């Protein structure tokens, strides 16, 4: 059996493929059983496969201090899903779901099937545990990140379904209304979320599909979103990608090696409330539709004025190169500000927002077309921050953004992202200690 390397040539695998790993995760039975043993052995095997930085060969550890998929080098593809717990569930169901999800995620992120019998190793008389479309594919840098929405702690009717209402972080509440919101309830919120990112879209979809299946009877898919063409970077080695407006996005993002900025702006600290969330973060998702056809008819100078950067290089209009700090005091030949006061780059800049920064991890999306024959496209914005206030402050600051004329916020959600699971345990275990 061979796999293709990035140049497309067939090569002998340096590690073990999904197929080859059948049976190696010994002692792993049905989902939820023997969590530590199975995941541990899977991770051990995976070490040998991890060879290159980025690309299809990447394997990221599932267990650790923080969940993977936040500072991890941004992968090329996203499948994001929001779930609601079903009315028939109790606390034990929620715990078992998180255990089963963690177990399956620990395996899939290592390039394994969801269980030891997997896609073709089980009984011929039963549907396979694993749906099978990722057979023969590498881990492709898959990360699976879980989050808990406000309604998991307390339903909209004020019900404490799982005995965790008192543990709800005070800041974890439905986001306030923002100017220009055009939110669709069916594209917003949710008790739980899963962010699956991978360099191969089939691997990301395989993850969400199997996790949804594992959840049947306990949690129901509320909405989901496919994304492609990352719109932010989290390492200096990654080139700044472009969004569907054609502009570089995320030039000033927090990078994975900037531990001081991560500690200040992204990770919930030990002294923060609540204690169980230490090492975690808050995730905000916004589905932002772009009025593509209208934008494409805007003259270049106007596009650049709206963004505050030049389209080709990504440099601020005050001059320099992409990495140059914008100079908001600079003026053009006519004496007007070089960077418009209502431009996106100025309104979003930390200097304008009390030094607030966030870690962005968004993706482009194109969901076919609308009934009007327009491209149904935009930005699926994802940001991680230490406190939800950071996002709220920035979004309010953007209320006069010139770009708003071409944007519609149609989906929204917020989730607490627990710290990473320890081997043998599961994501969110500290909630049920």
């Amino acid at each position: 059996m061979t796999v293709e390397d990035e140049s497309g040539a067939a090569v002998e695998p340096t590690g073990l493929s999904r197929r080859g790993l059948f049976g190696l995760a010994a002692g792993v039975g049905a989902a939820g059983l023997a969590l530590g043993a199975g995941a541990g052995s899977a991770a051990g095997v995976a070490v040998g496969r991890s060879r290159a930085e980025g690309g299809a060969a990447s394997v990221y550890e599932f267990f650790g201090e923080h969940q993977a998929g936040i500072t991890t080098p941004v992968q090329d593809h996203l499948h994001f899903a929001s779930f609601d717990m079903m009315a028939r569930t109790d606390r034990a169901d929620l715990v078992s779901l998180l255990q089963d999800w963690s177990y399956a995620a620990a395996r899939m992120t290592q390039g394994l099937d969801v269980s030891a019998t997997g896609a073709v190793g089980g009984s011929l008389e039963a549907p396979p545990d694993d749906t099978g479309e990722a057979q023969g594919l590498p881990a492709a840098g898959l990360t699976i990140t879980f989050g808990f929405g406000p309604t998991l702690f307390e339903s909209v009717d004020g019900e404490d379904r799982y005995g965790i209402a008192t543990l709800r972080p005070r800041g974890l509440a439905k986001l306030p209304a923002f100017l220009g919101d055009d939110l669709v309830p069916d594209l917003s919120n949710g008790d739980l979320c899963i962010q699956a990112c991978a360099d191969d879209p089939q691997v990301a979809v395989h993850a969400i599909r199997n996790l949804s299946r594992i959840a049947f009877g306990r949690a129901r898919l509320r909405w989901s979103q496919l994304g492609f063409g990352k719109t932010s970077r989290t390492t200096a080695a990654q080139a700044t990608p472009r969004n569907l407006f054609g502009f570089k996005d995320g030039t000033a993002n927090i990078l994975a090696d900037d531990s001081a900025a991560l500690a200040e702006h992204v990770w919930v600290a030990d002294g923060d409330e609540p204690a169980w969330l230490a090492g975690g973060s808050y995730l905000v998702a916004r589905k932002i539709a772009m009025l593509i056809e209208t934008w494409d008819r805007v003259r270049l100078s106007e596009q650049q004025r709206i963004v505050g950067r030049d389209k080709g290089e990504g440099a601020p209009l005050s001059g320099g190169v992409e990495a140059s700090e914008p100079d908001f005091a600079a003026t053009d030949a006519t004496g007007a500000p070089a960077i418009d006061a209502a431009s996106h780059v100025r309104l979003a800049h930390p200097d304008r927002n009390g030094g607030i920064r966030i870690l962005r991890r968004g993706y482009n999306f194109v969901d076919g077309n609308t009934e009007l024959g327009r491209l149904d496209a935009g930005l699926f914005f994802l940001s991680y921050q230490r406190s939800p206030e950071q996002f709220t402050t920035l979004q309010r600051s953007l209320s006069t953004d010139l770009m708003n004329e071409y944007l519609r916020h149609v989906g929204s959600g917020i989730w607490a992202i627990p710290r990473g699971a320890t081997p043998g345990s599961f994501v969110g275990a500290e909630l049920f200690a």
Partner: protein
Amino acid sequence: MTRTPSWKALGALAAVGMAALALTGCVAKADVAATADALTVTSTDSACDVSTATATSGTLTFDVANDSSQVSEFYLLAEDGLRIVGEVENIAPGASRTLTVVAQPGEYFTLCKPGMVGEGVGRAGFSVSGEAVAATGDDAEQKQQAVDLYAAFVKDQVEQLVPAVDTFVAAYESGDDAAARDQFPQVRAFYERIEPVAESLGDLDPRIDYREVDAVAEGLDWTGFHRIEKDLWVPAEDALNADGETPAWQDWAPSTDAERAAFGDQLIADVAELNDYVHSDDFQAALDAQGVAGISNGAIALLDEVATGKITGEEDWWSGTDLWDFAANVEGSKMAFSLARDFAVAKGDEGAALAEQIDQGYSDLDAALAAHGSLADGFITYADLSDDDKRALTDLLNALAEPLSQLTATVLQ
């Protein structure tokens, strides 16, 4: 009904003893000498007299004498009046046969079915008291019992389908559309409970249950329930067929009296053929060949019917009576499961846990369906089902179908 008769060779469906009852029934295959303490049953044209209405749990023997003018049958039904705990059939006028069952404590019904069609006569309560008793016979015998009870259930449903179709067709052919509309979803329930069996029969299901778009796609003459349905619920001039594209009146017009007679008579003949089949050796042989796995797969196949055709509203496009079909499919599935359940439980803790998950799945789905009506009192139409209702039913269907999909492998372990 599905476009492609999948589920080969036999379908499934089934009958009998649910969890709480866990009856091990037994179908008499031959006359057995009555024992001294046998219960006696006298089947006449209008009654079904049982010597007592109570008994103690354990092996019960019913000595059934047929004093009616037709070939008769005797049934012991579970508390829901639908599942068959034991039955004896083909009792010639003047003859006697014996039914032996291992009965657990609980409430039952007895009834006779002279003429072997219809709902039977003399339905009466029958109470069994005492302690729960262990099943008798080895694994192979118990599995054969399950298969036989399953066969009995299928036969019973078709036997009830036959006269129900007669009455329905009479109303349709005579132009009493209001009566025919009332009966349409009720008659179909007998068919929907055993749908995979009919679908295993090549061209019979297409004749009985194809939708217009399916018949057109396969180039078949369109007959059966749905042809009649369109006559009974005449579409608006601008309505579209279930494909959402072709006009309802394209290549279609309300049937003339002569066409109604032809479609009606055809349905009666097709149902008679189905009845002949389920009483044939071929049917029993097909069931025997599949064994308990066939029953389990039948339970699964019926939920697939619900998931693909009923919850989407594609089945009863003009009448909107999809929820009746939905409920009947689930009833048939639940009965098939009830026959296979004990074999799963016998596999240890995992099997028992699976059975409990499936029990809960049926229970939750039944409760959600009950919010919209019942087979006895009728359901709301598909158009009156909200998107949230459909979503909730779909979620509960997933919750049930996922563990149920593991049943066959578990019972075969």
